[in-house]
């Protein structure tokens, strides 16, 4: 399995996009901290990059990459290799490359300029989101044979997680504003990894007071150790479940 990961990684690194992505993140990470004296402000700017750009790049790049490795997968499937290993190696190769890119691009500047609990959580959330969106991309790519359709689904999924979901939540909040929805909100936010990440970071920045009563509920839940552990488990589920379902489909797929 390690051999296949090696070949996937080598192929991705030869592909210049991942290097461009690393440099792009590094430039932003460095400039944000050099423009602002206040590192918290810098972190806040980076927050948007982490929550919007990272999922977008991860899901699009992974989907296209999986489609482009169709030949590679086909070649390996006729060899004495387990399908499970081929698929997981592909996942590990892509995830590892993107994690590495994020860590160099955002992780290093944050750790250099703002080595604090907030900074570390920002990097951790970014790394988790990277892996989550690679897993979601694998599921989108294995489900549809048509490349254009698969990439379209990936873009729609990103739109849903980054924009539509918040709209839906606001809609529900206004429609049912007469009812006590705080705990329900807590549950709803676990349906979107991007939201969990955002709440996680905002709470650490101590700006939860700005979010009113809901903010207090979130603080009460996510601020405690059990709450943090639950949120981390939910994030881990967001990595494992899409990957598990994609693996099940791949195992029975005709090539």
């Amino acid at each position, binding site marked *: 399995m390690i051999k296949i990961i090696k070949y996937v990684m080598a192929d991705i690194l030869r592909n210049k996009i991942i290097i461009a992505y690393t440099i792009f993140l590094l430039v932003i990470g460095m400039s944000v901290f050099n423009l602002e004296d206040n590192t918290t402000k810098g972190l806040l700017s980076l927050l948007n990059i982490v929550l919007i750009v990272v999922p977008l790049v991860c899901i699009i790049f992974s989907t296209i990459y999986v489609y482009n*490795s169709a030949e*590679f997968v086909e070649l390996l499937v006729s060899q004495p290799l387990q399908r499970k290993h081929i698929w997981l190696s592909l996942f590990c190769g892509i995830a590892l490359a993107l994690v590495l890119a994020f860590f160099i691009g955002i992780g290093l500047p944050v750790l250099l300029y703002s080595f604090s609990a907030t900074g570390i959580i920002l990097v951790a959330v970014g790394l988790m989101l990277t892996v989550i969106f690679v897993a979601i991309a694998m599921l989108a790519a294995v489900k549809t044979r048509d490349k254009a359709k698969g990439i379209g689904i990936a873009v729609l999924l990103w739109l849903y997680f980054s924009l539509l979901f918040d709209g839906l939540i606001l809609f529900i909040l206004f429609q049912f504003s007469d009812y006590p929805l705080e705990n329900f909100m807590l549950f709803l936010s676990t349906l979107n990894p991007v939201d969990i990440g955002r709440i996680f970071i905002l709470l650490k920045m101590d700006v939860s007071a700005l979010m009113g009563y809901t903010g207090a509920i979130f603080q009460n839940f996510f601020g405690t150790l059990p709450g943090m552990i639950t949120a981390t488990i939910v994030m881990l589920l967001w990595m494992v479940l899409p990957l598990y379902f994609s693996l099940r489909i791949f195992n029975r797929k005709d090539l």
Partner: protein
Amino acid sequence: MIIATNVTKKFGRLTVLNNVSVNCNKGECIALIGPNGSGKTTLVKSILGMVVPDSGFITFNGQNILHNWAYREHIGYMPQIGRYPENMTIGHVIAMMKDIRKSNHNGPLDEELIEQFDIPNMLNKRMRTLSGGTTQRVSAALAFLFNPDVLILDEPTAGLDPVASELLKEKIIKEKQKGKLILITSHILSELDDLVTQVIYMQDGNLLFHKSLEHLQNDTGEKKLSRVIASVMRNQS
């Protein structure tokens, strides 16, 4: 060696394989013949585990191949249309295959075809720049490389020039004499004449017959395989 029992496969509403049962043994050289779209390639891919049958099962040396993968180390497969990672060079692909199969292959490698096909001089060419014929040469060389007990060749001579095609044919005869099981699908019946011992004829996903060549020759009174098949088809319609 390979036994397929009641294998059925549907792609949507289309039945590609309908209750196909075959029994292939060591030392046989089997020609898989049938019109386009009769399910030959699907049968071959089912044996390789690339296509998962809807019902029925296939055993290799007595073991069910479902969820099994180790058996594929005994198979050399040459696909009809070889598809390879486009960015890799021929050298990379061959090195990668050697690397991947190293752990479960411990015997000498058979590089005869690589030499005969002049592949060492093209190691730096990228796969996407190759012509169809050159890709077929690489596919053929890879199929024979690990000295497998079973060779599955899907349209091996399609796209090869006469010289390469002749070299490949000689190689197949040589391997057949070593007692290997060889499965060939082809449309060019004249090429199969001095190779095959058995014939499987498929039509619309059904296996019409599986007989030895001698048997067929006696039945029809013809010598050449192409005439034998023509005569069989005439009698059936």
